[in-house]
């Protein structure tokens, strides 16, 4: 007997499997495919950050740093170990295995860094945590710039293009499934308890530090995978792609979607990836509109899109818990 969420995941993966078949006969425009893959990557990033910022209530501003670690370690695997691997196993499926290995290694290395960063900084709260995670994001950038083999400020080029529509959306689906099931499990209630009131949670015997670090490590893991997808999609990465601005971009997705609301965050990730594409003709005004959007959103509905939907007529009677 499988649960409802497992069934949904299965369905989503099947749908992802069907995508490549649709892709060729319909002659999808390469541009649409590119945007669709970006949507999937941003969903992965936003949903994973939502576990930290939304469900656990720890304000992290360094998510792009973990994405960067993932991107660089995955690129390092396929660029440096890849040719040797493909020589030993010259089968048609080998690049796929290599890509999956790279993604897993990316996730694990980002998670490890998340652990190292998380243990000291999660003792802090609110604004302090925000600024420390921001600081770590900057430090990660400076360190990458100073490592010669990783290309320094120029970055890495010629990364093979392994991220297909199927893999991008599969990883997005797996991320959603993992985060969603985790916070809905018995263990996962602890995240919400830490979010609601840390002192009360401690009094109930919840080890809040442990929960915070768990959320941080899992969030970093999926951010790393998001980075791996990104690296194998754009095929060229440099440290400036994983800076403060990228972190803010992911945070805005989480806020817009409504902190701790997975569905809302997915919608926001799609919206904020597709919307700039429509604004492309306004190139110079794009960032200004984006900034105004953030400000007005916060002024008008500080709890995100989910709250806005609730304010729509007809939905008012449907009271839902904050966790939907």
């Amino acid at each position, binding site marked *: 007997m499988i649960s409802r969420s497992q069934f949904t995941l299965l369905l989503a993966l099947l749908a992802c499997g069907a995508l490549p078949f649709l892709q060729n006969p319909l002659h999808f425009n390469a541009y649409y495919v590119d945007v669709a893959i970006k949507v999937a990557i941003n969903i992965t990033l936003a949903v994973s950050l939502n576990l930290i910022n939304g469900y656990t209530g720890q304000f992290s501003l360094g998510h792009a740093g973990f994405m960067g670690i993932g991107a660089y370690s995955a690129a390092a695997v396929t660029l440096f170990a890849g040719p040797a691997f493909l020589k030993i196993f010259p089968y048609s499926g080998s690049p796929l295995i290599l890509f999956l290995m790279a993604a897993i290694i990316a996730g694990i290395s980002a998670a490890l860094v998340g652990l190292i960063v998380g243990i000291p900084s999660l003792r802090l709260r609110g*604004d302090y945590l925000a600024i420390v995670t921001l600081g770590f994001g900057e430090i990660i950038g400076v360190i990458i710039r100073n490592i010669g083999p990783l290309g320094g400020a120029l970055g890495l080029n010629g990364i093979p293009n392994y991220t297909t529509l199927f893999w991008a959306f599969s990883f997005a689906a797996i991320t959603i499934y993992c985060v969603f099931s985790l916070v809905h499990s018995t263990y996962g209630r602890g995240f919400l308890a830490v979010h609601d009131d840390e002192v009360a949670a401690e009094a109930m015997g919840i080890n809040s530090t442990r929960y915070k670090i768990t959320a941080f490590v899992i969030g970093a893991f999926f951010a790393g995978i998001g980075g791996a997808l990104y690296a194998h999609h754009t095929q060229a990465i440099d440290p400036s792609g994983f800076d403060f601005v990228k972190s803010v971009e992911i945070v805005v997705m989480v806020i817009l979607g409504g902190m701790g609301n997975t569905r809302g965050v997915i919608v926001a990730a799609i919206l904020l990836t597709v919307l700039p594409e429509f604004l492309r003709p306004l190139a110079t005004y794009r*960032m200004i509109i984006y900034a105004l959007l*953030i400000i007005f959103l916060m002024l008008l509905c500080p709890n995100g899109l989910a709250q806005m939907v609730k304010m729509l007529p007809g939905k008012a009677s449907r009271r839902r818990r904050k966790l939907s």
Partner: protein
Amino acid sequence: MNEFLQQVINGVSLGAIYALIALGYTMVYGVLKFINFAHSDVFMIGAFSAFYAVQKYPSVFVINSWPGGALVIFTVMALCALLGMVIELLAYRPLRNKPRLSVLITAIGVSLLIENLAQLQFGAAPQHFPDLLPVTIIHLGNLSISSTKIVVIGVAAFLLVALEFIVRKTKIGVAMRAVSFNHQTAALMGVNVDLVISFTFGLGSALAGAGGVLYSLSYPAVEPFMGIMPGLKAFVAAVLGGIGNIPGAALGGLLLGIIETFVKGSHYSTFTDAIAFAILILILLFRPAGLLGKVQIEKV
């Protein structure tokens, strides 16, 4: 030894600028308890308004002269004070009783908005900042000190003392301190909280504007994103000294400036930008209240 003293002077001069910006962060944090991310952009606007003032009105703001330079700094401070108050009125006041996180996000939004408006208006390329003041090199024994450095240190020190006077001795200063303790109680005592918060923003932004001009004197290239790094480091300085604590911000700024200058002069110069954050993390781990801050016990 000579090189050491020379570096100390460079460090103090850089640190004085960090201190000026840090004061704005620390005062706003004191009254509103949030990080004003837009503060670093007020700093940038300060540098740009000086740049355009001397370009558009060369007869009023005479470059390469002492009265002209002083006039530029005062004008910029007044403009930035106004800008700070407007930002507070439009973006932060409507969120006064909302969660602090919303205010933080709004601040990030305001920061992005100002940076991108500036980019649209001023262009993305760095522009050369004119010599506002006549520059001479002063020789002291084997040391050679640029007069710019002395002016930077002098102006910053003057502003710090003036600020300390305002906060300690004037009526509005007492009100500021009262508001930073408790909004409601201060309001009950007849303090106009909105006015005091507005004044605090004005004061902090004026200092940031002065910081912007002084920074551009030492590093004469102005561009729309120039505020981000000094702003972040100044925030680190504020935390280092104990956030909400005015002498602490000054001390933190000086320490950070000196440490950074020494790292820049050493073999590890490429790591300079990481040093500030490494210090921040260490401080928060071992002394979260900062060097001069008081440890607060959380009550339930």
